[in-house]
């Protein structure tokens, strides 16, 4: 397969997947006044696929993620998500529909767990919030499910009534992941989930994430500047610079045989130890 610098719709047609794409993004553009946040981003994401977005700070990767997740309103483009009722453009959805989507089929893992957790609410309450938001009204059932999920992210069950402020950074991040995955979302957005953690904790978190993604068949869009993270997690990689996608392809392909000058610089900047 030839690598393409800017992507076109033909790109997706070359990779044949068994299903229809879960998310189809085309021409997504966000401007901050005269400056560009991200411009003309196109890609397809298939069920069970992990897409990494890398680039330096200010390259527009977080802007892109916020636009995709509906936190920011883009200026142009389409974000078509395969909802239970068929494909729909999430940018044209009414706000109640979009918010419902973001607490059922979607999840968002923030870089800083404090942004994604309620720090004044116990771990169990944090995990249970999404369940209660979609109508769970049985305390015992909510608590059982919360306990189950704390176990899955390797948090001891006796910490269920502790507040996140009593947790270490790594535990907070794992709690945030449990809180997001409890309603079995199909698409997870992650904004530098391993940022700010030390390397051994990072390694455990990545291990955990990889297991969850495989077990649950999640589709993930993960934004990071850490190439090791995408090497481990991502099936496909998108490299951004100055708000534009400069290169995309299979992760190993892009990292081992970078074509674009910026990607070559990025790959060669990683310290080898």
């Amino acid at each position, binding site marked *: 397969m030839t690598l393409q610098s800017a992507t076109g719709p033909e790109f997706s047609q070359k990779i044949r997947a068994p299903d229809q794409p879960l998310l189809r993004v085309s021409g997504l553009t966000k401007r901050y006044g005269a400056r560009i946040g991200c411009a003309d981003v196109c890609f397809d994401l298939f069920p069970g696929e992990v897409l990494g977005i890398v680039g330096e700070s200010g390259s527009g990767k977080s802007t892109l993620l916020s636009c995709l997740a509906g936190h920011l309103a883009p200026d142009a483009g389409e974000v078509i998500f395969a909802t239970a009722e068929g494909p729909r453009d999430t940018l044209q959805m009414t706000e109640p529909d979009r918010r419902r989507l973001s607490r059922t089929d979607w999840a968002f893992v923030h870089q800083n767990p404090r942004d994604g957790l*309620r720090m004044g609410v116990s771990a169990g309450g944090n995990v249970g919030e999404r369940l209660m938001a979609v109508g769970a009204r049985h305390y015992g059932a909510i608590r059982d499910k919360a306990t189950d999920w704390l176990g899955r992210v390797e948090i001891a069950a006796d910490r269920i009534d502790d507040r996140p402020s009593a947790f270490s950074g790594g535990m907070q991040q794992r709690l945030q992941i449990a809180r997001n995955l409890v309603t079995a979302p199909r698409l997870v957005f992650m904004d530098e989930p391993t940022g700010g953690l030390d390397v051994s904790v990072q390694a455990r978190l990545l291990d955990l994430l990889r297991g969850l993604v495989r077990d649950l068949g999640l589709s993930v869009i993960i934004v990071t500047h850490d190439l090791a993270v995408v090497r481990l997690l991502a099936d496909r990689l998108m490299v951004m610079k100055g708000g534009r996608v400069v290169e995309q392809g299979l992760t190993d392909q892009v990292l081992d045989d970078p074509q674009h000058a910026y990607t070559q610089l990025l790959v060669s900047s990683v310290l080898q130890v």
Partner: protein
Amino acid sequence: MPDEYNFAYLDEQTKRMIRRAILKGVAVPGYQVPFASREMPMPYGWGTGGVQVTAACLVPADVLKVIDQGADDTTNAVSIRKFFQRTAGVAVTEATGEASVIQTRHRIPEQALREDQILVYQVPIPEPLRFLEPRETETRKMHALEEYGLMHVKLYEDIARHGQIATSYAYPVKVEGRYVMDPSPIPKFDNPKLSDCAALQLFGAGREQRIYALPPYTKVVSLDFEDHPFTPSKADHDCDLCGASDSYLDEVITDDQGGRMFVCSDTDFCRCRREAGHVGRLGGEA
């Protein structure tokens, strides 16, 4: 009535503005209607919202009763009653049955209310989601989109920490299956009285500039979990003065030897029962 003030203190334009807010509140039960709250000659937290609602509702023929924590003779009740005696010249009473407008702080009278009565609540913080979500823009959106999962997170936390729903006052309710509402800091014992009440119930929050309402016979449900249902709670005693077993009780410390007594918080209710010949454990001596 002194000539220098308008009837019931507020000028007519202000009253009209408040009545509009009240009408909107009645039309959308449980919805918090913003209004241009005025400075009142009392500090915030003393019932500035309730006083403005009462002033907008009063007519010269009204009979006013003011309750503070169930009692007619505490500072807040006495000063608000005096305020309207001076500025509106309306008749006042302590008897629930005789009043046409009742302004209350933290209680609903034990005696059932009638269709020709108005109950005005003083509300400190009208937003039930406030302590869970500090952003006003966000709470408004949550009300608009009926996203009330967060309210149950609070109840979940109660059970996780105390083994039961420990919220005992300002217990959140859902109005006509739509808006979640803070019933003002009434004990949860009073929550069932909110529902299907014959009287018009108005809620005024002066500092927060919000008015909301429950029209007569509105369905009001207290939030709970299936396996932890709502229970109205009270002290497990009878009133020591009138012997009532079904009224909300205050605990009164009587000495430093551990002596205590339980008395009805609704002073008018207790007085009526004693006048009717009911006597409690300490009814003879106290």
